Every structure is written in C-alpha cells, then in structure tokens.
C-alpha cells in the first residue's frame, strides 16, 4: 500500500510540474509577457521598473524557476483589477463554489440512486424506459441554456425564486454560507439544481447498469434461495455492491462539477471562483487566470489521488503493486 501511495504521489507531482510548464509557456512563451503582466496604463519609467522587478529581462529558464519558486510559496502574482494577491482572491471565492457543488452532488445522489435502482430492477418496464430517456435529456440540455430556462420558468413567469446572487449568508466557523438562511437557500435552489441535473442522469445510469448486472450474480441467486425478501436483497446486498463504483465516480465528478460551476455561476451571477475566472478573462486579468488554472489543477490532482487511494483501500480486488491499467 505504501509503495502504491508513493508511486501515485510522484505521478501527481509530475502532473503539477507539467501543468506549471505549460501555463508558464502559455503566458511567458507564446504571448508577450510584458503586455500580459504589466498593466497597460502605467508610464514608461514604471514600465521599465516593473520589467526589472518581475524579472522579465532574465533568460527564460531562470524566469521559470522564479515562477515555480514563487508558486511553491503560494505567490501566483497580483490581480491587476483588484490589486490583491490572486490566490487570496480565489480562496475567498472558494466557499461559495464548494457550497454549490456539494449541494448539487447531494441532490444528484438523493434523486439518482433511488431512480437508478428502480430503472435497474425492471429495465424493460415503461417507467424505467421513461427514466432512461430522461437521462438522455439530462445529458443533452446545455448547462447554460437550461439555467436560463430555469430562470425564465421559476423567476420570470412564476416569480418563486430569485435570479441572481447568493442572498443572505451567515458565518459558520469563519466561512460564509447560504445553506442556513431561508433567503440563501432560495438563491441556492436554481443554481444547484442546474448543476445537479447532468450528474443526476449520470448517477441514474451508473446505478441502473450496476443493479441490472448485480441481479444476475450468484450471491443474489443464493440470497433468493435462502428465502430472503426482495427488499432485503436489494437494500443489503445489491446496493452495497454497486456503491463502490458510484462513490468512485462521484468523487471524480467533484472536479468536473467545480469546472462546470463556471457556467452555472455565470448564468446565476453566483459569486464563486468560476464567475471570478470568467470575469478575469473578460478583464484580461491574467494573474488571476493563471492562479485559477494552477489551483484547479492542484484540486483535480488531489481529488484523483484521494479517489485512487480510497478505491484501492475499499476494493480488495484492486492490485496494489505495479502499474494501474
């Protein structure tokens, strides 16, 4: 186990290094770094001073090690627009995004697992077919348009829910959250639902496929032969066995939900890190974009690492030595 963890850890660090090289080349290599990193409104003297201070007159490999050294110290540059360190800016927006993503994941699980079981137990029945057709719709609706239509229906036509922002927040252990106020929950409902729908569809498909397969396994036949009731077979044996892949996929989806929240946050003006990324792209606030990419990479790599380790620990059939296929 230790050897496996170590091997995965080295891989993760290599991925991070690779991304840092790509990002560095993208910012410093392809474009004109002076144009990207020095705000256009400064005077010529300030400009020269900034070029010297940022080390842009040094050879490129020296610049890369400077960039890497600063990144390791948690310094990924200052935002042009806000004038504060880019990393701080993103970390301040992190709770809003995580709140949205966690609620969306819970929604997807609460709706997806029962519907998936239902569809998987009787795959040829009419309701099951309707559920499976619904999942195709869930995958097919583009996130941004679906969000707009949710606003149109629930906010413009029905007037039930607000269209934008986070609403009232309360501070819990130093973190602002909308989960604990009625107004905040109202603001959360539509964005979380919008983010959850494709994941619900994914969850339904995974659980349905797993259930259909599990029902043909020997242990189910044995449980039947023992005279166990269907409810107990499904609840105790089938569900347990299909939850391993479901948990794994849910873990891996966490990263992609953070990425997709970029779209949802833009539609619902949700003040998370995704909205910050889009705003920074519009404002040509490159340090924030670079910092977002590096932090997002760190997040994905960390999540993948944890999921792999958990998977290896949960499922005894996963080989712990050598290459993972």
């Amino acid at each position, binding site marked *: 186990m230790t050897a496996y963890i170590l091997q995965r850890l080295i891989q993760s660090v290599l991925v991070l290094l690779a991304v840092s090289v790509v990002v560095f080349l993208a910012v410093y290599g392809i474009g004109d770094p002076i144009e990207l990193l020095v705000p256009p409104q400064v005077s010529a003297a300030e400009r020269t001073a900034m070029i010297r201070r940022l080390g842009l007159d040094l050879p490129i490999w020296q610049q890369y090690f400077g960039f890497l050294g600063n990144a390791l110290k948690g310094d990924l540059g200052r935002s042009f627009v806000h004038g504060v360190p880019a990393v701080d800016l993103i970390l301040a927006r992190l709770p809003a995004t995580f709140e949205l993503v966690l609620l969306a994941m819970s929604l997807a699980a609460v709706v997806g697992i029962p519907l998936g079981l239902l569809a998987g137990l009787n795959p040829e029945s009419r309701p099951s077919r309707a559920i499976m057709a619904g999942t195709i719709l869930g995958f097919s609706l583009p996130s941004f348009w679906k969000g707009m239509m949710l606003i149109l229906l629930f906010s413009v036509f029905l007037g039930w829910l607000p269209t934008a922002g986070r609403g009232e927040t309360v501070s819990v252990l130093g973190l602002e959250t909308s989960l604990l106020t009625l107004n905040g929950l109202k603001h959360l409902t539509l964005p979380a639902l919008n983010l959850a729908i494709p994941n619900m569809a994914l969850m339904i498909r995974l659980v349905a496929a797993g259930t259909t397969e599990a029902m043909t396994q020997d242990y189910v036949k044995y449980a039947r032969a023992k005279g166990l009731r269907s409810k107990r077979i499904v609840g105790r044996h089938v569900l347990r066995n299909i939850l391993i892949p479901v948990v794994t996929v849910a873990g891996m989806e966490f990263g992609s939900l953070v990425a*997709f929240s970029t779209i949802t946050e833009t539609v619902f003006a949700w003040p998370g890190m995704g909205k910050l990324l889009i705003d920074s792209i519009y404002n040509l606030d490159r340090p924030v974009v670079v910092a977002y990419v590096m932090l997002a990479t760190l997040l994905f790599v960390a999540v993948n690492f944890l999921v792999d380790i958990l998977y290896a620990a949960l499922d005894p059939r996963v080989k712990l030595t050598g290459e993972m296929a």
Partner: protein
Amino acid sequence: MNSLKAMPATVGADADTPLRRQVLRRIRSRPTTRGAMILLAILLLLALLAPFIAPQNPHDLGSLSVMDNRLEPGSQGMTGITYWLGTDAQGRDMLSAILYGLRTSLLVGLTSTVGALLIGVFAGLVAAQFGGAVDAAIMRVVDFMLGFPSILIALVLLASIGRGIDKVIVAIILVQWAQYARLMRAAALVERRKEYIEAAVNFGLPTRHIMLAHLLPNSIGSVLVVSTISIAGAITLEATLSFLGVGVPVTQPSLGLLIANGFEFLLSGEYWIAAFPGIALVLLIMSLNLVGERLRRSFNVRGP
C-alpha cells in the same frame, strides 16, 4: 415491440444477415431512434439549405430594420415580412438567425470531430503498434488530457488565443483527440493478437502496410460509433464557449451565441431571443445522442 425481443441482444450474434443490415434493422425498429434519425436528417437539410429557405439573410446588416427590434413571435415587420419566431435586438428575424446558426454549429462540430478523430486514431494506432516507450509516452499525454474537464482546457486556451471559428475548432480538437486515442489503442491491441495480423507479420509485410491496411480498418469501428456522441459533445462545447464569450465571432453567430445574445432580455420576459435557438440546439444534440446511443448499444461498444 414483440418482434424486438426475438432479436439478438447485440449485432453480430445472428450470423446469416450482414452486419450493416442488422444494425439498420435494429435502429429502425425503435420508434424513438427512428424519430431521432428523421429529425437529424431534417436539421442537416435545413442547415444546408439555409441560404435558400431563410426569409432573411441575418448576416447582411443592410437588410435588417432596426425599427423591428425585439418583436414578439408572429409579429409583422415594417416591410410586411412576418417574424414567426420574433426578432432580436438588431431587428434580425430569429428564424433566419437560427437556420444560419445551425450551419455554424454543425460546421464547428463536424470539422472538429473529424480533426480529433484523425489525430486520435493515428496516435492510438501508433501506440498500439509500437508499444514500449512510444506507447507509454502517448498514453501519459492522453491520461494527462483526460484528467482535466474539457470545458476548462478549452476556456483557458481560447482566453489566451482569442475568439474565432478556426480557434474554437482547434480548441475542441485539442480536448477531444485523447478519448479517441485511448479507444483506438484498446481496439487495436485486441486486434493485434489475432491470427491474421500474425500471418501478415510472418509474410514480412511492411509495418506501415499492416497498420493502415489491416489494423486500421478492423479496429476503427468502435471509435466511429463513439464519435457520433462526440459530435454532440463538440457542438455543446462550442455553444458553451460562445455563450461565455470566447467562442465564435459575433459576425458569424452559432446557436450558442444567439442564446447568449438573448440572455440580457430574459428577465424582461422577452423569452424568444434565447429560448428558440436553445430549442434548436437541444433538438440537434438530443437527436445525435439518441442515434449515437443506439449505435453504441447495437455494436456493444463501451463509452469513452
């Protein structure tokens, strides 16, 4: 419905009928899939014929009348033209804009899929054929690419190179080739163990000939099946990027950009500017997904 149950679960199980006939029969036998195919054909036809059937040329700003801006669906314009789906902020007929937008969306979706297929299939084939360090190097890059959500890679790339149809296509190719490479490698590895390849090797046929004349045609099937669903993915990705403002240019709006243009008028209840292009987009993506899903199941191919 009863005839369906008598049919083999996957194609290929019934040896007497040719494979293509079996697939076509299975696709036609499902009413949903048949409907999706007809819909897809209609949408393709509409996109192809847009310049001939659209009531207006939405790119020709001279023919637009700003007086007709944001009219409700079914309104009559200054020149007597009826706007069946309403008009946008520039007084552009939404129906015409959607027909032309469909063209842009399909152009980007199809071109980028073909590009990604070419690169991915080549990379997968090379990895499977040569193995060893070449394989390891290619697959590390593939794992690396697939480790990140495609929307994020494309978004950041376009943020640094700017918007444009060609640039969007490049971005989509960059994020989609890796899945084809992985599928192609897996299929080609299975195929390489078969006897006819061994025979070809023993005959002393050149490696390039074995790869292109034997390995490629026999293992590309599953990749092509998956590519149908991937076209839908490419179209969605383009629409999303255009909505976020880093996609196609405003002079050649795709369905995604049309929806984005309608966003600001949504709250005042002028729903048609955003809603109708969205419906066209969803119909296109749904029909591609339904057909692709049925193909995938019929050939028993696992998704990417």
